[in-house]
C-alpha cells in the first residue's frame, strides 16, 4: 500500500503540462500545443525566406498551416513533409518543427537545391486532444458526428470518474468476465485462456458512464473523423471515425488540393507512427495489380485469341491487344483498365529494389550514425485511407514515412532452435518459397507456433495457392501468438510499456460506479505508447532527422548527358540527344508511370529556320531509371549548316537542362 502511494505521489509530481507523467531526469522540453506550434511556425517563418499558407480552418477552429521554405520564384523540386496526420503522434510534430528550424539555420544550404513544404500537424483538432484534461486517446477532428445514430450528437464521451486527470480503464468482477490479472505484473490484464484452465474474472470498460442510458459506455464521444484516414487510396467505408467518405474532411481536402496545385512536389515524407524505412512495405497483398501477370476475362480472351485460364505478362498482352485493335497508342493502364484490374495495392515490383536499398541505408544510419542501437517494438502498418499510401499510389511520388520512437522491446531470451523458422524469416519469404518448404516442415512449424489443430499444413498451402492468405499474414499470426506467450498473455504493447515505465499504470483502485456498482479504475495512461516522454524528444529527433537530408539527396535529377550532331547532306542534320537521370531514384516511380503522375520529362528542340524531317519539336519521355537511366531522342532536321539549335529537357519536379549546339562537323557536346 505504501508503495502504491509512493507511485501515485511520484506520478503527481512528474505531471507536466502535457498531462503525462515524465520520468525523473527529464529535460525541460515540453510538447507544444497546436497554438504554440502556430507560434513557432511564425517565428521560423520570420527567420528565412518563408511563406505560411493557411490551408484551411478545421472544424475545431484550428488553423491547418503549411510552411513553405526556399527560394521564392524558383523552379526547384519540392519536398512535402506532412507530420502528425493522424493527430496521434506528438513527437512527429516536434520533428517537423525541428526540421523547419534546421532549414532556416544550420541546414540552409539545403534550400539551394530544394523547396520545402512542411505541415507540422495535419490534424490539429485531433492533436489538441493530447493536451486535454482528462487525457483520453482520441484523434478525431472537431466535427460533430452522431457515432451511434441515436437522437443526440456526441452525448456519451468518456468521464474521468476518479478525477485523476486520465481516462483509463474500469474493471468489474462479473459472471461474464473474460479478463484476469497477469501473474507477474498484476496491474496488467490478459484474456483468460479456457484451454489452459484459466477462468475469467473481470469485465473491462473504458473509464466513463453511460451518459445517455442506452446500455453502452462512451459510444458517442466528442468529435468526428480522423483526416489521417480520409485519403482516397484504399479508404475504408462505414467507419464513422474515418469520415463519411474519402476526402469528406476539410483537412484532407486542403492537403490534396495543395499537392495537386504544386506539381513541383517530388517527394512526400511523413512523420507519424508508421515507418516505411525500417522495413520495406512488402508486395504480399492479394491483388497483384502492378508489374505482374494477368488473366484475361473470357469474352476478351476469345476476341484476342487467348486462353482465359493462362496468366500473361502485361508486355505481351499489350502487343497482342495493340495488334488486335490496330490502336498503337493503347497504353498499359488503358489495357489494365480493360482487364478489370483494380487499383494497385502493392508497391510496383520495379520500385521495390530502390526502397530496399534505401531501407538498408536507413538501418545502417540508425545503427552507425544515430547510434540508436536498442531493439524497439515494430511501428504499426499503414492504416486504410492514410496519406502515406495515397502519396505513392495516387500521387505517384517516392514516399517515405518515419516514426522516431516506439517503446523499447522488453528483453527476452531467444528460444529459437537451430533450423527453426522465425516469424521474421517467414515474412520475408514469397508464397511460393514457403509452399516449397513442404507439408511436413510447415506442419512442424504450425505445431511449434501453437496454431489450433484444425489449422493444418494442407489447408495453409491451399490457402496460399488460392491467394486467400500470404506469408505476411502467417508471420503476423505467429508473432501475435508468440508475443502473447512471452508477455504472459498481456497485450505486447502494454507489456513493453510496463517494462519501460511501470509508473505509467494507474494502480487499480475501487470506485463506486453509478450504474455498474462496484468497479476498479486503473490501467495505462493515455498516449504513453504513442510518443516518448517529452524529455527524450530533443535527442531522438536530433539523432534521426539527418536522414531526411539523405533522402532529399536521392531525388531524381534530369539532365542532358550528351548531344551529337551529324551532317547527312547539305543542310540536313541528324541530332541525337541522351537524356539522363543522375539521381538515385527513378523519374517517375514505376507506380507514378502507371498513375501518370508526376508529369514526364519534356524535351524540346528549337532553332531558327529549322524544319523537322523526322522527330518532333516537343516530345515527352518515358520513365528514366535511377542512377544514370537514359533515354535517347533523335531528330532529322533541314537547317542551314552552321546554325545553332537548342535542346532542352524540362520537368516540373526533377530539374532540367538546356544545351545549344552549333551544326558543324564534330559539333555537339
Amino acid at each position: 500500500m505504501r508503495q502504491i502511494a509512493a507511485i501515485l505521489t511520484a506520478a503527481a509530481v512528474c505531471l507536466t503540462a502535457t498531462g503525462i507523467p515524465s520520468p525523473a531526469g527529464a529535460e525541460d522540453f515540453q510538447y507544444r500545443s497546436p497554438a504554440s506550434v502556430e507560434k513557432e511556425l511564425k517565428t521560423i517563418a520570420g527567420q528565412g525566406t518563408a511563406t505560411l499558407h493557411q490551408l484551411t480552418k478545421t472544424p475545431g477552429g484550428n488553423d491547418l498551416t503549411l510552411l513553405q521554405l526556399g527560394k521564392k520564384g524558383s523552379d526547384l523540386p519540392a519536398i512535402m513533409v506532412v507530420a502528425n496526420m493522424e493527430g496521434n503522434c506528438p513527437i512527429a510534430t516536434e520533428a517537423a518543427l525541428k526540421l523547419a528550424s534546421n532549414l532556416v539555420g544550420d541546414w540552409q544550404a539545403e534550400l539551394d537545391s530544394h523547396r520545402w513544404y512542411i505541415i507540422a500537424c495535419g490534424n490539429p483538432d485531433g492533436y489538441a486532444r493530447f493536451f486535454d484534461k482528462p487525457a483520453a486517446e482520441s484523434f478525431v477532428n472537431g466535427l460533430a458526428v452522431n457515432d451511434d445514430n441515436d437522437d443526440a450528437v456526441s452525448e456519451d464521451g468518456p468521464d474521468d470518474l476518479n478525477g485523476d486527470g486520465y481516462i483509463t480503464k474500469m474493471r468489474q468482477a462479473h459472471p461474464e468476465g473474460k479478463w484476469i490479472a497477469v501473474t507477474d505484473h498484476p496491474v496488467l490484464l490478459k484474456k483468460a485462456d479456457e484451454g489452459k484452465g484459466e477462468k475469467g474474472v473481470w469485465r473491462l470498460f473504458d473509464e466513463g458512464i453511460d451518459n445517455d442510458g442506452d446500455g453502452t459506455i462512451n459510444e458517442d464521444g466528442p468529435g468526428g473523423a480522423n483526416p489521417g484516414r480520409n485519403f482516397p487510396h484504399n479508404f475504408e467505408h462505414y467507419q464513422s471515425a474515418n469520415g463519411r467518405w474519402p476526402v469528406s474532411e476539410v483537412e484532407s481536402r486542403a492537403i490534396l488540393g495543395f499537392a495537386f496545385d504544386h506539381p513541383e512536389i517530388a517527394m512526400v515524407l511523413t512523420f507519424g507512427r508508421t515507418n516505411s524505412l525500417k522495413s520495406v512495405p512488402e508486395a504480399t497483398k492479394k491483388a497483384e495489380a502492378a508489374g505482374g501477370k494477368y488473366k484475361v476475362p473470357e469474352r476478351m480472351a476469345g476476341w484476342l485469341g487467348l486462353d482465359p485460364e493462362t496468366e500473361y505478362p502485361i508486355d505481351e498482352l499489350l502487343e497482342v491487344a495493340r495488334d488486335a485493335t490496330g490502336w498503337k497508342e493503347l497504353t498499359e493502364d488503358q489495357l489494365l483498365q480493360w482487364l478489370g484490374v483494380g487499383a494497385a495495392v502493392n508497391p510496383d515490383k520495379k520500385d521495390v529494389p530502390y526502397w530496399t536499398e534505401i531501407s538498408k541505408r536507413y538501418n545502417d544510419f540508425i545503427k552507425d550514425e544515430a547510434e540508436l542501437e536498442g531493439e524497439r517494438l515494430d511501428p504499426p502498418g499503414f492504416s486504410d485511407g492514410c496519406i502515406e499510401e495515397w502519396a505513392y499510389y495516387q500521387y505517384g511520388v517516392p514516399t517515405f514515412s518515419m516514426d522516431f520512437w516506439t517503446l523499447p522491446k522488453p528483453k527476452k531470451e531467444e528460444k529459437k532452435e537451430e533450423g527453426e523458422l522465425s516469424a521474421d524469416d517467414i515474412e520475408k519469404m514469397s508464397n511460393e518459397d514457403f509452399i516449397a518448404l513442404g507439408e511436413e516442415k510447415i506442419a512442424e512449424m504450425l505445431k511449434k507456433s501453437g496454431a489450433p489443430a484444425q489449422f493444418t499444413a494442407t489447408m495453409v498451402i491451399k490457402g496460399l495457392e488460392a491467394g486467400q492468405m500470404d506469408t505476411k499474414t502467417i508471420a503476423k499470426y505467429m508473432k501475435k501468438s508468440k508475443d502473447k506467450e512471452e508477455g504472459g498473455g498481456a497485450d505486447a504493447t502494454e507489456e513493453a510499456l510496463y517494462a519501460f515505465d511501470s509508473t505509467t499504470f494507474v494502480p487499480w483502485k475501487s470506485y463506486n460506479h453509478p450504474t455498474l456498482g462496484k468497479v476498479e479504475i486503473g490501467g495505462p495512461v493515455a498516449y504513453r505508447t504513442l510518443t516518448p516522454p517529452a524529455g527524450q524528444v530533443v535527442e531522438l529527433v536530433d539523432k534521426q532527422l539527418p536522414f531526411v537530408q539523405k533522402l532529399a539527396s536521392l531525388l531524381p535529377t534530369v539532365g542532358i548527358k550528351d548531344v551529337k550532331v551529324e551532317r547527312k547532306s547539305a543542310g540536313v542534320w541528324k541530332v541525337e540527344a541522351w537524356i539522363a537521370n543522375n539521381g538515385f531514384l527513378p523519374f517517375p516511380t514505376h507506380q507514378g508511370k502507371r498513375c501518370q503522375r508526376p508529369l514526364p520529362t519534356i524535351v524540346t528542340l528549337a532553332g531558327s529556320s529549322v524544319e523537322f524531317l523526322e522527330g518532333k519539336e516537343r516530345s515527352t519521355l518515358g520513365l528514366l531509371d535511377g542512377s544514370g537511366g537514359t533515354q535517347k531522342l533523335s531528330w532529322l532536321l533541314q537547317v542551314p549548316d552552321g546554325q545553332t539549335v537548342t535542346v532542352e529537357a524540362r520537368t516540373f519536379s526533377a530539374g532540367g537542362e538546356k544545351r545549344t549546339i552549333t551544326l558543324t562537323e564534330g559539333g555537339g557536346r
Partner: protein
Amino acid sequence: MIARCLIALALLTAVTLAAPRTLAGDVNLSFEHWYDGPAVEKALNDLRNAYPGLCQLQSIGQSEEGRDIWLMTITNTKTGKDTDKPGVYVDGTIHGNEIQATEVCLYLAARLLNGYDDIPMIRNLVDSCTFYIVPVVNVDSRWRFFTDASGFNIGRSPRVPYDDDNDGLADEDDYDDLDGDGEILRMRIRDPFGDWKTHPDDPRVMVRVEPPLRGEWRMLGSEGIDNDGDGQINEDTPGYLDMNRNYPFKWQPEYVQGGAGRFPTCAKVTKAITDFVASRPNICFNYAFHNSGGMILRGPGSKLAGLYSPKDIEVYDFLGQEGEKIVPGYEYLVSMDDLYTTHGDFDEFMFSNLGIYGFVGELFRSEEEQYRVPDEDEEEEEDDSWFGGTRDEEKQKFNDFVNQGTMFREWKKFNHPQFGEIEIGGWRKFTTRIPPTFLLPEMVHRNASHVMFIAGHVPSIDLDVFEVKDLGGGLHRIRARVFNNNAIPTLSAKNLSKGMTRKDILRIEGSGIEVVSGGVVDDALYDRISPVEHRPWMIFTSVPSFGKREVQWIVRGSGAAKITFESLKATNRSRTIQL
C-alpha cells in the same frame, strides 16, 4: 346602366376565373424546342415568380466557370417545411452534352406547379413530399453546347483543365470548327487503301469494308487539326473529368478508370451536390437523367459496391418494372450486369453511402427514329452504331422524310491545313443521342410521370394505438403500430445494415406516467415481444415496404400519454391517449 355594366363585368370575371386552365397553366413552358443556358434560368425564375408559395429557387454552388448551380425546391410550405417531408431528388445533364435531361427536369417542375390547383394527385404530391430538382448539373458544358461549335458527343466533362495526353499541357488540342458552321462534324479523306466506302444507294452513308475488298475513304475522326503537333488530333480537349465517376463511394483513381478526377469530389459541382444531398437526410429517392439508350438503371455499378439485399431489390423491381410501362420501350436494367462497370457514380454514392434508392434514366432510344411500316417483320440487322438503334440508311430516310433533312450535314470538300483535300459532314449536333424535338413532349411527360409515380411511393406512415389494456395495479399495456402505405421503406436495408443514418423513433411520454418496460412486438397474437432493455420509452425502428412495425409499452400512472413517430425520411406522426 352603370349597374348593369358592373354586373356584366362581374359575370365576365367569374367566367374567366372558372375557365379551366391549359395544361401548361400559368407559366407556359414549351417542349418543342431546346432550352439553352439563359432560357433555363429564365424558365426557373418564371416558375419561382409565379408560385412563390410552392417553390424556392437557390444556387447551391458555382461551377468551374462561375455559373450558378440552380436548385428548385418544390413543396407546399403551408403543409410543412421541405425538410420535414420525404424528399425526391432529381437532376439532369451531369454530362453536358446530354441536354434533354434538363428538359425533363423543367417539365417536371412546371407540371407540378401548374398542375397544383387542378390535378388532385399532383396537389397531394406537392403537399406531402418535397421535390429537389437540379435541372442542370454540368452548367458550363451544357451552356456551351448551345453557344460553342459542338457535336452530340462533345462536352461531357466539366471545364476542369486536364492534361489528357500527359504531355505537360492541358487542353491544348481541342476540336476545331474548320468550316465555321458552328458544329463539330466528321472528316473523311479519299484513300484507295481506306477501309470505308459510300453506300451504293445513299452516298451519305459510310460502310466499312473488309479485305479482300478495298475501300475508297479513310475516316479521320471529328473535325479538327493537330494543334500541338504531336501526331494526334483532338486528343486533349477541354476537361476531362467525368463527374459521374467523381463521387466518393469506392471511388477509383484515374489509372483504374479514366475521368475519375484527381480525387473524389474534386470538381466544384460534385462537391456542391454531395454537400447538398448530405444535408437533406429526408431524401428517399434520387433520379438522375442522362442520355441515351432508353434505360432505367439501378446499381450496383461495380463489384466493389457489394451485394444489394433482396429487400432492396424488391423495392427497386417494383418501381422499375412500373417504369417500363410508364415509359414504353425503356428497359429496367442493372448497371453493372447489363451495361458496364462504373466506380464513383452518383447513383452508387446515393445508395451505398447515403442509403438512398435511385435510378439513372437514359433518355431516348434511337429506335424511335424508325422509317418502316410498324408491323413489318422486325428482323434485327447488324448495326454499327455503339448505342444500338436503326441503321444509318434507315435513319437517313427518317431524316429526309420525317425531319425534312435537318439532321444531317452533307459531305462537303474542305482544304485541311494538314491533310489537304478532305470532306466534312455527318450527323448534326442535335441528333443521334438527342431526339428530334417533335418527339420531345411525350418523352418529357412520360419520364416526369415515372418520377411522380415514385414520389407517390415515398414512405407514408400511419400511426395507430391499437390497444390500451388496463393490467390493474395502476399498470397499462399500450400497443402502437406504424404502417407504411407505400413501396419505399423508411430506411433501405443497405442503410440499416451499414448504420448510415439515425433510425426512426417510436417514443412515449407523459407527465403522469412512468415507462416500466418497452419492446418490439414480433407477433401480437402470440405475445411475442423482443424487449428493449435500455431507454424503453424510445424505441429505434424502421418501417418496411408496404409493411408494419408494432411496439408495446407497459406504463404506470395516469393521464395523457403522447406517442410519437419520428423519422428522417417520413412525416412525423403523433397520437395522444388518456389513461
